[in-house]
């Protein structure tokens, strides 16, 4: 049981990175993007290709994966971010599907449907990362870094500009904010986080195949943001953890020995619906930033 719980912690960490990125895009700027699966795939494949085919060390693949995902984010973001709401959602979903199709078909680079397996393990200070605890340390280290970085950005002028864009694009642009630039920035940051998640996923699973990076992955990332609380980075990490706990819970406690696999999926669907009905703003809700507490006396 403990062992399985550790696995959930690992998966939660990987998805937390993706959810942090999604939160930057959706929770902060209010862009409903369904493309995280695509950037996740790019990160995974960069690590897989560079480390298996070119023999790079895992650590060296990370910057390439992150930068490439971010660039792709810019590339996808520039044209699509002009769109609104659901149109944007469906266009980004389209991009994710196109990415997956390309990966599935570019046999010479990605090995097509068979994927790339036997990705070498990472080493640190001469030690090979093998145990679950080591993976947890590495993965959550990155979660922490990204969390601090994003939280910092959120608190800076950029964060406020992003929130302003979410609240009212027209007013924001009339306040001198270049909305296209900021949206693309946010999109690229979110993409980079998903790319990083992809690297770690490839490292832990040890293989990549196109079937992993389906539309559901984006939905899961979105669910984590909504469940945790939009625009609240800490809550999003909690959301990632809870969603992974819920989806692997039947396995962890042996419930999956009793109920059929479909019932587990049905249950997940039901939880999703109930969650939306009873707590659409998430567990913790949006975080409000206080710059200075107003005292009661002051308001009198």
């Amino acid at each position, binding site marked *: 049981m403990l062992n399985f719980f550790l696995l959930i912690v690992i998966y939660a960490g990987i998805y937390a990175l993706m959810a942090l990125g999604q939160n930057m895009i*959706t929770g902060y700027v209010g862009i*409903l993007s369904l493309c995280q699966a695509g950037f996740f795939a790019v990160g995974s494949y960069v690590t897989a290709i560079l480390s298996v085919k070119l023999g790079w060390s895992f650590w060296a693949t990370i910057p390439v994966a992150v930068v490439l995902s971010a660039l792709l984010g810019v590339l996808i973001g520039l*044209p*699509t971010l*002009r*769109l*609104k*709401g*659901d*149109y944007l*959602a*469906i*266009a980004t*979903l*389209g*991009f994710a*599907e*196109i990415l997956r*199709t*390309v990966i*599935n*078909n570019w046999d010479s680079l990605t090995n097509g449907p068979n994927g790339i397996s036997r990705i070498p393990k990472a080493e640190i200070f001469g030690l090979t990362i093998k145990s679950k605890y080591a993976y947890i340390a590495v993965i959550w280290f990155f979660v922490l870094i990204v969390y601090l970085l994003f939280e910092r950005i959120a608190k800076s002028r950029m964060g406020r500009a992003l929130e302003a864009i979410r609240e009212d694009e*027209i007013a924001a642009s009339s306040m001198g904010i270049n909305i296209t630039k900021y949206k693309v920035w946010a999109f690229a940051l979110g993409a980079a986080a998903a790319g990083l998640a992809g690297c770690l996923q490839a490292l832990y699973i040890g293989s990549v195949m196109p079937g992993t990076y389906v539309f559901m992955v984006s*939905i899961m990332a*979105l*669910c984590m943001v*909504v469940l945790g609380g*939009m625009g609240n980075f800490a809550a999003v990490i909690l959301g990632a953890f809870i969603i992974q706990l819920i989806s692997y819970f039947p396995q962890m406690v042996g419930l999956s020995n009793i109920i*059929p696999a*479909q*019932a587990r*999926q*049905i249950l*997940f*669907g*039901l*939880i*999703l*619906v109930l*969650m*939306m*009905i009873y707590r*659409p*703003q998430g567990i913790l809700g949006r975080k409000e930033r206080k710059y200075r507490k107003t005292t009661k006396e002051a308001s009198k």
Partner: protein
Amino acid sequence: MSSIAEFFQHLVNGLTLGGIYALIALGYTMVYGILKFINFAHGDILMVGAYLGLFIFNFLRGGSAMGPWWFVAFILAMLASMLICALLGMTIEKLAYKPLRKATRLAPLLSAIGVSFMLSNGAAWAWGTQSRKLDYPFDNTPLNVLGISIAPHQILILVVATIMMVALTLFVSKSRMGKAMRATSLDQSTAKLMGINSDQIISLTFGIGSALAACGGMLIALDVKVYATMGTMVGLKAFVAAVVGGIGNIGGAMLGGLLLGLLETFGIALLGIPTSYKDAIAFAVLIIVLLVKPEGIMGKAEKEKV
């Protein structure tokens, strides 16, 4: 392209595929037009409709030999399945979407995905994972016209799609209910002030949309068999078709569907795009259309008030 016959063969194939997309897009566009959210469960209602139709059809025809009765039974099964799915759609709307009217836009979207999960896995649980065949209710030997093969069921798909579109257009533009629907889609609160019971209208729209899905489901079943995940991809593509045509626009859904079907077919046949990129074509078209004309080919641009 080796001959004119091949061109026309591709044309026929593309039209049938497009007819299927169009049929489903009609339901999508109606629901979206009123509620403004992507009903991801639409494709799954289609699947349920196909299963129900299959069961009812098999029950009705019993052990009888193929003949006119089979076609009657098919139509009856389709109507029954449409009715049940309409009720199903209305129930889903009441339970899973109605409580979310005032929530953020994301809430109904995710709720719909939850419903989709429940429907497709529920079907796999109840009815198994294997594909089932819906027998043709008529002799489906292809007709050969000048070297072009056309299967009768392809014609049926196009005919039914056209009938549905015309009926729907008439209903929405002429009937009282239809007018109330349009009013609700334009502005729910004003419609309410005008004495329109918008809850009822939304429920009705879901009912009609789901019935259309069931109808589409049965026709598609003739073409692709019946299985638990049959609605997922075709549903997504139909939504793409609806957006390309201009969401909320019935003619646009039809146009978008046919266009998508033709582009997928000719993109591969004429432009030499590898066939495994077929799905990518649909999405690429979507993205291009959205960038050039974000409101869709037949949609009306809405300018934000400043």
